[in-house]
């Protein structure tokens, strides 16, 4: 008898003690202490490890941001979200399907080899990436610095697509960007990049960039507060900022209007969401402004569609769905569905996003919709999205630069299936919108395209396959030691090339 009890008691207590201290340990999870910061090394923290630094395999945002530092692209995206020549000197459009790209002369790869047209041809022939959606017919090196791209059909967003790909050396697979890869330490999950002396804008002032993965949000705050990190882009959330207030003399917080489009997607395959009145009722039942105020401390702006404010193709006169719970209630009653209407919302495991989902649940309840929140791992949600197994899901398109994204997301030929990929996960079918999208794709006059995209967004606000929510601001937190850093709307790391470190 005694032995039976004795055997289980220590076990119980050990488990309890373990749990009580687990919390304490979690909070104090920091990196092992390091020697004092070196003078000309920028300590950058990221929230997830980049899966690849090679531009051909870098798909996540952080991989692309870092990859651009090492593998410079032909064009970059400016703050008006139009392509700006970078490694390219200029682009000449000879006819609707032929582009002549002229490279800057004298460019060098990190190993000293010259960069010329054949490397550009090699890079683009070697990518199997969805990054380049342009219908490329052929790529030819016309001269040492001249590359000719021929397209199958006219494709207006072509130059923006070129910004998505860093140039890789044909012979040695190295890059030609302002920083070169130095080493990687798998034990500390640290990457070191070193300034490239032959960079065409001149050697960057900051000699070394050390990139470290810090997965826990609280640990990231501590790193910044303790001065162990100089740079965190897009990984400090608005609700965390009050914690940094006390350290204002040491830490700088910069905001730029973001490009990450938050939306609610609906599955139009089956009732009740195939009924436009139900979708309108949901849009009218959601009161978004108080969410932006309370949850984002105002650091997000209401959106009227996928294109962010200030984008060259944005129609500034569009209105977001108006909050009108009374009309929503009436609309729902008109549909004849039995109330409360039961719907399920898929959302990720992120605590903050879940809390916003609870706000939707509360607001929809007022008009007679019972929203069940199902928390799933992102990989599971993604699978369900692709296979059309959902009522609603909340997600973010990141970042929305090229308006041709409408084709991927809303064209009826982009409904994902067993044999094809596509972003039209709610199975939205609208021949009129298809026509507008196709027309915009082959229109190269910027003003005409702008008008077409305005019509597309207006149509989407009427038919509501998505409910537009907001754009979250980009928040970059840096040490005050970092000077001359100008954050961009695209959250690019390239402005670090022109920044300096002044250690106090």
């Amino acid at each position, binding site marked *: *008898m005694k*032995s*039976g*009890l004795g055997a*289980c*008691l220590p076990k*119980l*207590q050990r*488990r*309890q003690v373990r*749990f*009580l201290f687990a*919390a304490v340990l*979690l*909070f104090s999870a920091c990196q092992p202490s390091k020697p004092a910061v070196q003078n000309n090394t920028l300590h950058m923290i990221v929230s997830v490890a980049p899966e690849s630094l090679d531009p051909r395999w870098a798909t996540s945002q952080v991989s692309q941001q870092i990859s651009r530092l090492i593998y410079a692209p032909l064009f970059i995206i400016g703050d008006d979200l139009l392509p700006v020549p970078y490694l390219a000197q200029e682009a000449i459009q000879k006819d609707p399907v032929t582009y002549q790209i002229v490279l800057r002369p004298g460019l060098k790869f990190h190993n000293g080899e010259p960069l010329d047209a054949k490397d550009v041809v090699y890079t683009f022939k070697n990518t199997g990436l969805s990054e380049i959606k342009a219908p490329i017919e052929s790529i030819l090196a016309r001269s040492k610095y001249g590359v000719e791209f021929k397209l199958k059909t006219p494709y207006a967003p072509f130059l923006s697509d070129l910004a998505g790909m860093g140039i890789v050396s044909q012979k040695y697979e190295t890059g030609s960007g302002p920083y070169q890869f130095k080493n990687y330490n798998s034990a500390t999950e640290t990457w070191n990049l070193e300034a490239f002396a032959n960079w065409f804008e001149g050697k960057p002032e900051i000699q070394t960039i050390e990139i470290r993965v810090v997965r826990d*949000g*609280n640990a990231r*705050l501590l790193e910044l507060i303790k001065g162990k990190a100089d740079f965190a882009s897009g990984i400090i959330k608005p*609700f*965390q900022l*009050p*914690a940094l207030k006390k350290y204002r003399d040491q830490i700088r917080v910069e905001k730029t209007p973001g490009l990450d489009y938050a939306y609610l997607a609906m599955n139009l395959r089956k009732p009740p969401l195939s009924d436009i009145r139900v979708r309108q009722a949901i849009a009218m039942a959601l009161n978004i402004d*108080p*969410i932006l*105020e*309370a*949850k984002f401390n105002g650091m997000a702006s209401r959106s009227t569609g996928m294109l962010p404010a200030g984008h060259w193709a944005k129609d500034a006169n569009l209105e977001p769905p108006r909050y009108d719970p009374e009309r929503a209630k009436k609309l729902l009653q008109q549909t004849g569905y039995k109330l409360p209407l039961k719907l399920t919302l898929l959302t990720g*495991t992120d*605590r*903050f996003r*879940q*809390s916003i*989902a*609870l*706000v939707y*649940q*509360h607001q929809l309840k007022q008009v007679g919709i019972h929203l069940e*929140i*199902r*928390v799933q791992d992102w990989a599971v949600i993604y699978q369900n999205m692709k296979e059309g197994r959902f009522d609603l899901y909340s997600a973010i398109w990141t970042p929305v630069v090229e308006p041709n994204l409408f084709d991927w997301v809303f064209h009826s030929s982009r409904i994902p299936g067993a044999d094809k990929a596509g972003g039209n996960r709610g199975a939205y079918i609208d021949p009129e919108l298809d026509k507008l999208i196709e027309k915009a794709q082959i229109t190269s006059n910027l003003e005409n395209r702008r008008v077409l995209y305005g019509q597309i967004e207006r149509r989407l606000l009427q038919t509501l396959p998505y409910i537009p929510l907001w754009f979250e601001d980009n928040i970059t937190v840096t040490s005050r030691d970092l000077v001359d850093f100008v954050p961009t709307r695209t959250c690019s790391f390239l402005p670090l090339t022109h920044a300096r470190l002044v250690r106090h």
Partner: protein
Amino acid sequence: MKALVLTLVSILIAVAVLGPLAIGPAGLELNLAHDLQSGYGENGFDVFTWLVYGARVSLMIACICTVISLSVGVIYGAISGYVGGLVDIILMRFVDILLAFPGILLALYIAAILKPGILNLVVALCATGWVGYARVARSQVLAVKNQDYVTAALALGASHARILGRHILPNIWGPLFVQASFGVSSLILAEASLSFLGLGVPPGTPSWGALLDQGVTYLFVAPHLVIWPGVCIAVAVLSFNFLGDWLRDVRDPV
């Protein structure tokens, strides 16, 4: 000791049973204006109300699981011990297999497969919770089944069911109750752990573990979200551990 134990446990039970009736659910309402203000949590619910309702959820789950585990475990263990032989060997090997898993891990696994929900949480916790009771019940039955009064009952022609129910079970309850009170405290912890990991109660249900989970996200801006549920869990676990200690001392003063 006795006074302390009884006060703590009765306060806990009173809060869990009467608390929600006394303060009403108004504080659980969403109010974005209070989001993460002092005394309020995520989406502006009142932390005190949440803790009181959380006490009900925690204690209810712990008690239900204990009753189910205890019943299943005692019946299983008593049959195993009483019948003995090959049946005992087979039944106990199955218990050994379950015991080989760390309990919380198996519960995690089950909770992850099932959807979050109170009923599923109970299933996950009971799935491993009963084996400890089965072991204790069996060893108790083994100890008493050869006693003279059992032999006497057998000689008088009592059925096996009657012997188990009327003669053996009343004599083995003691240590099982002691274990049950420790069981309650470990279940409070297990529920909190699973809810903390997002595998317990569904989002929006008041629970200490779920509140702790929120608190970790907002640690630097709203530390009260970590401190108060932490205190509640610690006090509840300590109370039921004290209760177990006290029951053991009462049973076995040496």
